[in-house]
């Protein structure tokens, strides 16, 4: 390799190793737990053979089953609601001239990202108790909708900003009403952003622990709460199996969201 080239001159010895170490730190624990989830015996030191036993055990655990059902119901409901709200809000924020209070609107939409999660959690708890909403799936859902809004909003707004106004002009010019313009032109063009936002909101809801933990009340359990409860008692290979599944689900969703976003970005420029 050349001693002097633009690339070698930029290089710092050791940075490559730090970057490698960074990836190892980020992924190492997850990889380890995945491997152990397939170990047929409880041992840390010995490999008892490849097996799905712990997965089967987790699937057959009624607590895990109901927690999974709760998590999915809440994630779907929260992501759907938050996405709908975010689509409407993005249309108002981004289409048309700047209006009085638009900064305020923008700040409000992003507020859930600014407030420390633990503060949101206890504030929601106090609020729900004070206004007399029984803690349970309802309170979890309400809290999730709110913190999902900015996550759904970001990709949707970014997408909408990339769509030039003349497409709507063209549709209107070709006899489309406002609703038809949205339905046949804007909505299909926004779709990659909407899907991306939906997926992000979905995993954010599925993953939430801190807020859910405080507003769940005694009866309602989500998957992260169930895992937390189990870890407090002690490590079992079953935990590894559930964790690996959740890692897998998140990984798939992030990748999907990423690919949608990329294909959207590609089709945008012509």
């Amino acid at each position, binding site marked *: 390799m050349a001693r002097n080239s633009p690339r070698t001159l930029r290089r710092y010895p050791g940075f490559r190793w730090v970057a490698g170490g960074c990836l190892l730190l980020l992924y190492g624990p997850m990889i380890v737990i995945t491997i152990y989830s397939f170990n047929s015996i409880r041992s840390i030191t010995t490999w008892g053979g490849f097996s799905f036993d712990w997965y089967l055990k987790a699937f057959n655990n009624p607590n895990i089953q109901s927690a999974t059902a709760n998590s999915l119901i809440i994630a779907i409901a929260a992501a759907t609601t938050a996405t709908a709200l975010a689509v409407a809000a993005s249309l108002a924020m981004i289409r048309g001239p700047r209006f009085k209070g638009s900064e305020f609107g923008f700040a409000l939409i992003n507020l859930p990202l600014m407030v420390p999660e633990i503060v949101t959690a206890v504030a929601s708890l106090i609020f729900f108790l004070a206004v007399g909403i029984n803690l349970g799936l309802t309170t979890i859902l309400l809290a999730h909708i709110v913190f999902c809004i900015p996550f759904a909003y970001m990709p949707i707004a970014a997408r909408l900003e990339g769509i030039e106004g*003349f497409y709507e*002009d*063209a549709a*209107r*010019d*070709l*006899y*489309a009403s406002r609703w*038809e313009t949205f339905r046949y032109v804007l909505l299909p063009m926004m779709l990659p952003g909407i899907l991306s936002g939906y997926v992000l909101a979905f995993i954010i809801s599925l993953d939430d622990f801190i807020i859910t933990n405080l507003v769940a009340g005694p009866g309602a359990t989500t998957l992260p709460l169930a895992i937390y409860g189990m870890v407090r008692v002690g490590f079992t290979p079953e935990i590894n199996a559930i964790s690996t599944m959740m890692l897998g689900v998140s990984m798939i969703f992030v990748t999907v969201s990423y690919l949608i976003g990329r294909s959207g970005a590609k089709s945008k420029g012509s």
Partner: protein
Amino acid sequence: MAGAVPGLSNSVALGIMKPPSTDQVAVSIKSVVKTFGEGPGAVTALDDVSLDIADNEFFTLLGPSGCGKTTLLRIIAGFEDLTNGAVFLYGDEIEQLPPNKRPVNTVFQHYALFPHMGVSENVAFGLRRLKHDEAAIRSRVSEMLELVQLDQLADRLPAQLSGGQQQRVALARALAPNPKVLLLDEPLSALDLKLRQAMRVELKQLQEDTGITFIFVTHDQEEALTMSDRIAVMSAGQVQQIGSADDIYERPVNRFVADFIGDTNLLEVKVTGTAAKGAVTCETGQGIKLTCLPAGAPKKGDRAHVSIRPEKITLTQPSRAKDAIPCTVGRLIYLGTDTQCLVNLDDGTEIMVRNQNAHGSALQFGTGDKAALKLDDGAARLLMD
């Protein structure tokens, strides 16, 4: 539905047919004012614009960036409200109508083809919104695609088409609902030069074949001069002159038009008297006497400008003739068909002369030579502002 325009008979009928030519006014703009914003930051885009566009006319709005031509087009299409004045379409006031209720279609500058729809769906879009039946839509779409010679590409997506093809789809889409008026917002600006020149001819042909009134916005004077029946030259939100290509080039009404259309030499003069056939005599500060046809009604003693097109001046050998203006040859620029020559009058005023190389006249001179200028008859035009 476009037919909802009061007083307009079924405005969006299928089928291309050339209506009998009438003297009817297609679009009438009456004292239109458009300001953007309020208070001290407000910008006046259109300042009391009035004009009539005849049925079946190829009408061009020509002017530099920011002159208000696009704003006027957008007001006709319904994308902008107007601050004051009125817009009539075949005698009906249309300001209250949203864009989707106006029997007017637009070819957008960047085409604005819907990227998620194929070519035929783009062309069918307006027809579907007008609730035409499926069979009629299908036959109209294929008719339109044939018209713009894209019938082979009906299933392509816009991103799979070249710029010229996209341009044709945009045209077919806007023409499909058979609008009363077609608005074209600098539709050729994104094409390369060769294609642009070919499209000029095609557009003009299309307008003649369909008999639809075209309102064409451009900043490119060559486009305007080659296609238009009439041209409105705009500047600073006002119409400077309306006329045929010949009118605005040969008989500009003011300095802006003379300067904006083509090249010209502008000399400051003082009106000294009248001559035959409505001409006037005038004199530059350095005593050069000129006879010119005036725009407007000058009085003796008025200060004004004379515009002389460079191709209407001939460079000759020094001469003592009464109408020969002595000069010194400066830089010579060879342009192929012509040679352009910058000469200096005795007082230093620089004059541009352009002579066809067929005559070879300018090429006889070298930089620094003494020469004389001879003006063609009627070359000098007196402009009052």
